[in-house]
């Protein structure tokens, strides 16, 4: 009986030893990487990671559905021109080329428009529309919805 127990202890001890050796080898192999991660895990690195993630999302478009009320009839081209002017005045030509706001659709019945813009500048477009409202080129501006696809945005723009 005692012989059997000793054999079991021996097996357990040898397994533990093997596992310890493997862990030690892995620690030696990945020591540099672990030290690098632990040493650099501070706010600066996290900020860098967040920025890189944001950069990856840089070229995603958003489709803004806005209801625009104007005293005179307004066409898509005219609206595009006005938004371009306001956006350039607020953000400059560089900001405009990065944002590239485009009026894709304007429904005269519901007076809703779909404006495509780069994700980072979606609030900028609303400011540009407010700028037009201040200049009395538009009477009222109602931001309705922001979608990720044109199909959905058009569906919202078509409904009253």
């Amino acid at each position, binding site marked *: 009986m005692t012989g059997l127990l000793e054999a079991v202890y021996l097996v357990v001890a040898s397994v533990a030893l093997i596992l310890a050796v493997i862990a030690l080898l892995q620690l030696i192999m990945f020591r540099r990487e672990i030290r690098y991660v632990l040493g650099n895990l501070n706010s600066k690195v996290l900020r860098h990671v967040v920025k890189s993630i944001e950069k990856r999302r840089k070229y995603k478009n958003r489709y803004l559905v806005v209801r625009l009320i104007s005293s005179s009839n307004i066409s898509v081209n005219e609206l595009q021109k006005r938004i371009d002017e306001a956006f350039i005045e607020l953000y400059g030509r560089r900001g405009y080329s990065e944002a590239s706001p485009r009026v894709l659709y304007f429904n005269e019945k519901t007076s809703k428009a779909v404006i495509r813009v780069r994700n980072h500048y979606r*609030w900028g477009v609303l*400011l540009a*529309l407010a700028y037009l*409202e201040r*200049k*009395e080129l538009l009477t*009222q501006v*109602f*931001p309705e919805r922001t979608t990720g696809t044109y199909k959905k945005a058009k569906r919202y723009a078509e409904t009253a």
Partner: protein
Amino acid sequence: MRFKYVDVSNKTPPSLLNQLVEKASNYAYSVIVLRDIPDFRTLSDVKLIPCTIVSYDEVPQAIKSKSLKVLSARTPDELKLSNRVLKVLNAVEVGGRLLTDSKFRKSYVKLVNVGVPVIINASEVLDLISSGRDLSGLRVLLSFYERSRITIALGSGARNLNEVHHPIVYYALLLELGLSEVKALSALTTNPVSILRGAGFDWVA
């Protein structure tokens, strides 16, 4: 259910009151704090609250009136926060050089220490942006707000009908100025309500 907003600072003349109320109602405002009205009234479900500008000399009259008492400061000299004024004051409206110059840090620290809520007029900020002025003073104030050391409420500050915008536009403005989403939203929703509650208008939603 639509959320109702509060415009904590509006300077539209009383002759345009009906049009203002109509536009504000369309933009989901339930309460407007107006400069030039004598008393509280309700027009087509929009509640109009009078606003009194407080200065050191006008304190006795301000105590009597049932209104929102605001100290309007455009320069550091106008920011006289004596005990006499603080007794009746509900908020401080900041504008002019206090928004454009960052060298008045002491004035902002004074506001932080006193703990009075600060009202910023979006109309003035938009004017400064469109004229290409530096907003370093405002940035200092917003940095205090971001660290929860001060309470800021954004009012329209509209002097005309075309300067009243949708609340989401003001939210966009605050985000573009560098505030976080939570702080930007609370500057438009909870902070104006708490200012009005502090002035005795407890029924504000």
